[in-house]
């Protein structure tokens, strides 16, 4: 700090320091752009959400064998069903990516079409998951049956709640693109939405591997 001080002429006390990194938002470069700030903040939110999922994963793992005489993981999982679910969600992420390209090209029709496809595939995922849950309930293997099922329903259900909230957000997003066009603030929100949607994919991949794939092998 004193090195900078000695070389400086004292004529201007507010003179900019000569640091190695003067890009905005880095080191001594001053405040970052709004897009960076919003994206960064939302990224931090996703990290905190990952911590929530981490707790649920840990809990599920602890309770995985506490079946209390009820069904075990391999008794209830249908991998074919889950594979279709997974395909829906991953495909919806692909369309979300298309929407990102459409936003960059400012193509309203393509955006709406891509977002509708994203939403429909997301909805299909949710409905498939709901049907899986409903089937378990109908057999009497709901979350109150055993600690294992409690952990399973909560972990997978929490992801489902996230997807549902994402669908509400997606609808709002489409309305905003339609009504307000390509304003910078709408663009920033879409940046957050697309991060959220891809984040749900990542969590699902973890659920698919650690809950379903490992579960059927145990």
């Amino acid at each position, binding site marked *: 700090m004193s090195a900078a001080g000695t070389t400086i002429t004292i004529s201007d006390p507010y003179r900019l320091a000569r640091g190695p990194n003067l890009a905005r938002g880095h080191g001594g470069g001053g405040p970052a752009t709004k897009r960076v700030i919003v994206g960064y903040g939302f990224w931090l939110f996703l990290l905190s959400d990952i911590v929530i999922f981490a707790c649920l994963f840990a809990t599920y793992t602890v309770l995985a064998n506490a079946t*209390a*005489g*009820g069904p075990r993981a391999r008794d209830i999982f249908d991998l074919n069903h889950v594979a279709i679910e997974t395909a829906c969600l991953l495909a919806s992420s692909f369309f979300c990516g298309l929407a990102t390209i459409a936003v960059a090209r400012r193509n309203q029709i393509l955006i709406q079409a891509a977002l509708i496809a994203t939403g429909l595939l997301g909805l299909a995922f949710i409905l498939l998951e709901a049907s899986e849950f409903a089937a378990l309930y109908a057999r*009497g293997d709901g979350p*109150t*049956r*055993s600690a294992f099922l409690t952990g399973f329903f909560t972990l997978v259900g929490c992801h489902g709640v996230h997807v549902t909230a994402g669908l509400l957000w997606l609808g709002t997003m489409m309305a905003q693109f339609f009504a307000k066009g390509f304003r910078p603030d709408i663009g920033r929100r879409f940046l957050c939405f697309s991060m959220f949607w891809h984040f749900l994919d990542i969590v699902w991949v973890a659920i698919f591997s650690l809950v379903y794939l490992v579960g059927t092998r145990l």
Partner: protein
Amino acid sequence: MKSVGPMVRQAALQALLCLAAVMLAPSLACADSILEPVGPVGRGDAIILLDAVVIMLAIVVPTIMVTLAFAWWFRASNTRAVYRPNFTYSGRIELIVWSIPTLTIFLLGGVIWIGSHRLDPFEPLPSTAKPLEIDAVTFDWKWLFIYPEQRIASVNRLVVPVGRPLHFRITSASVFNVFFVPSFGCMIYAMNGMVSQLNLQADKPGKYLGLSAHFSGDGFSDMRFDPIAVPAAQFADWAAGVKGAPLDRAAVGVLLKQSRAVAPYTYRGVDPALFDAIASQKLPPGEGPQSGRGAPGTQNAMSRGRAP
């Protein structure tokens, strides 16, 4: 060093005990102090405690004194103190600043490592005598002590022989509690569905203080029991002469209901599988209260899943 170490420790220990005694003088007449244990476990724990205090006081006291001295000497009105507005870094001081706490913790870490292993409550005591087996169960809000070898049980009173190791298996039939006899030493959790173990020994006859060290609900203050240490012969007499109803599932059903400040009583004839049945949740857990604000008829409203 080898010969000096224990001497220094002994001297410091005595000094501390004196200090503690002065502080506690008004109440020490017949108190159950953790610093005056009556068994090897309590003594071991207390010595570690005092060791740790001595190690830390060695830097805490000088630091406090230097803080006050610096603050006083460098007061703005003291014209003799040298003002050094640019004294903001010194490699030597930094080195000392990091190394003093590090070395202290290094020393303390050794104490922690050795102490945690040597005084692990699950570890049997080094003794030639065969330990007395005692199974303890906590209910809302009373203690049940089962003597499986004697086929007797006692509520809210723990009678033990002097000088013989005691091996406890501890569980809870409802919420968490902690088994604690300050004069004997080491405490440990009582948890439903789990069995904790604890090894203790009492070397001096007497009636001591026993209580739960984990809050367990409205009757928690009455989670008291009377640990009584008696000579071995007297213990044998007591065990042989214990009277009471047999402790079976029906009797446990009564204990599972909440009650407070239960006067000590005993059972004769104990179902040996009972403790394991409670610990492995083959018996249902304690019933809990049937009241609470905003909870009219809660017992009907709540769905607790199907019984396994």
